[in-house]
């Protein structure tokens, strides 16, 4: 088992980062009064971990027994019927799904599944009616209509189910939904907290950590705990015992982007642009999201750039990333950004060095 899963805290009491939030959550559910919840924060900050621990706190070990299902719904939408298929992860007490996977039909999924859950309400041994929990991921990617219909459904069926919403950015979740949930901001753990976790894992695995080693991993992880643990495990596989100057391998795609950056710096010509295009394609076919490539490329470029150019380049990065969202084909916009950069950089070189 990967360390990321092995050392994922199972209960709210064992959480190492966000202890205060975990305690608040615990208080919340032990008072038997669980409102709808909205978790938001950057990836790798522990949203899912907290949600799973919370479910376990509410339902006990039953929440662990999950099955993955491919569910199909036939939704009656006025004059026609729509078929929607979606993968869900469910236990007897909760259902987890990613409604935005259904594309523009997401609103039907949201309505249908909540109605279905409301219909078969669990009843406990004493015959009292309980509630189920629906975990919705990536609510920020839901369409406006889906968010609208979610809002109504939330009120209508609030007696029989509780929603836990999870997203990266709360600004894309409509105000109406936010105001109906208890908002939980999960910030990325600080480097200090990441170090604490790494040392904890090191101790459990009885590893010797040279001084400064955890520090360097934490620094390279960009405040993502998941990444830090993955890096840590990679290092362990590569070389043990650790040496204090052991290289921490960057992700291979990051290395690739940094190669692209340096090749752009070396030469600015149509020929080089053509080569870069090939490399960008390579990244895209390996399923690296285009906006992440662009962000990383900007990061690499900014590192070596004169300060007077930084403003300009960051502006164009924002500009082309926006275009990329609106457009269809990512490679055009990535390439346009590279071409723009080359033109600016060449102009700058001619200006300064003649």
């Amino acid at each position, binding site marked *: 088992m990967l360390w990321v899963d092995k050392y994922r805290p199972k209960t709210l009491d064992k959480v190492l980062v966000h202890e205060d939030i975990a305690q608040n959550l615990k208080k919340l559910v032990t008072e038997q009064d669980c409102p709808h919840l909205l978790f938001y924060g950057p990836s790798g900050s522990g949203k899912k971990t907290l949600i799973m621990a919370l479910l376990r706190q509410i339902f006990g070990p039953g929440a662990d027994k999950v099955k993955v299902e491919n569910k199909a719904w036939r939704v009656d939408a006025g004059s026609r019927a729509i078929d929607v298929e979606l993968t869900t992860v469910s236990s007897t007490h909760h259902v987890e799904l990613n409604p935005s996977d259904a594309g523009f039909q997401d609103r039907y999924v949201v309505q249908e599944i909540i109605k279905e859950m409301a219909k078969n309400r669990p009843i406990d041994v004493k015959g009292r009616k309980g*509630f189920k929990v629906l975990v919705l991921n990536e609510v920020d990617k839901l369409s406006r209509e889906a968010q609208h219909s979610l809002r109504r459904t939330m009120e209508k069926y609030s007696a029989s189910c509780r929603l836990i919403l999870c997203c990266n950015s709360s600004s894309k979740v409509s105000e109406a939904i*936010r105001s109906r949930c*208890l*908002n939980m901001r999960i910030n990325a753990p600080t480097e200090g907290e990441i170090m604490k976790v790494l040392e904890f894992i090191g101790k459990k695995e009885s590893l010797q950590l040279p001084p400064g080693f955890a520090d360097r991993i934490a620094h390279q992880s960009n405040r993502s705990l998941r990444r830090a643990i993955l890096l840590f495990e990679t290092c362990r596989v590569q070389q043990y015992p650790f040496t204090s100057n052991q290289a921490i391998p960057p992700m291979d795609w990051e290395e690739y982007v940094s190669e692209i950056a340096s090749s752009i710096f070396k030469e600015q010509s149509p020929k080089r642009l053509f080569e870069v295009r090939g490399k960008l394609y390579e990244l895209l076919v390996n399923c690296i999201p285009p906006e992440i490539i662009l962000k990383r490329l900007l990061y690499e470029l900014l590192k070596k750039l004169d*300060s007077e150019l930084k403003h300009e380049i960051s502006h164009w990065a924002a500009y082309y990333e*926006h275009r990329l*969202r609106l457009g269809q084909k990512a490679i055009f916009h990535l390439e346009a950004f590279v071409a723009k950069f080359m033109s600016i950089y060449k102009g700058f070189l001619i200006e300064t060095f003649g």
Partner: protein
Amino acid sequence: MTPVLPSSQQWVEKYRPKQVKDVAHQEEVVRVLTNTLETTNCPHMLFYGPPGTGKTTTALAIAHQLYGPGLYKSRVLELNASDDRGINVVRTKIKNFAAVAVGTAHQGGYPCPPYKIIILDEADSMTEDAQASVLVLRNALRRTMETYSKVTRFFFICNYISRIIEPLASRCAKFRFKPLTEEIMTSRILYICNEEGLNLDSEALSTLSSISQGDLRRAITYLQGAARLFGSSITSKDLISVSGVIPDDVVQALFIACRSGDFDMADKEVKNVIAEGYPASQMLNHLYDVVVESDDIPDDQKARICKKFGEADKCLADGADEYLQLLDVASNITRALDNMPQEFPFGS
């Protein structure tokens, strides 16, 4: 082991005024509707105004007061934006509803006027076509169904009156709902605190009214959230953490970094904001307040920065990356404050 469902209710629902006269701060509409209660004479209504000012509350309250619990179901139709509201749905639902005849039976001392009420909540999110079809329907109802139901009264509720088509708006009595003043907010909140046994100091109280910006529903939701998380004594810090408002020092840190004129410092601060999980759109709002209210920025610089805010907001609404947009905004603020030229030197 299945936990028992708590009987607890949303406070927003629990403390919703049940009678028209309890609606705070909207004197004109209250006066008109009290009159309605006496004479049972009621025009079509159009309520508009910012969220949380009592529009839906007023409409529901008058409907309840007119018909009482017995007849309410058969006489009042509520249609919400979240219900499917294409043209067809609007037509069939309203038609079916209006086709059932109303009796003249008076029940339990309620006025029970001989018409039905259709409440269309969030009317501005209806398509223009759907709005037009309501209009056509209204006329059709008057002509064909007069024998059954004298007339049907519509209550339209919306945030922006400009999104309601003119022929519809001109047939209604229009009422603007004002944002609540601070005194009314505080008195209402204090009342709820009393009922729920909460302890709120004056600082928390003023924080609550400032972060909710005249929206009573939001204020009550925050209050309930804070009460659930932190128990009965609530400080202003608790309220801020529940509401998701960005604390002032975070905004100031970013602004100071922009002021320093150093791109890398601004970049670091932006990264920090994103890692802390603060939403970029809200950060823009706060930065906007800081920039507009600051006394030592000349007007032309303010204008330049605000232009960028507008652009970035549009990009964010389109789903652009938060980090890149915020970085662009920060870099623009830096350049504006340093009076760097608006045009880039090398990009042609």
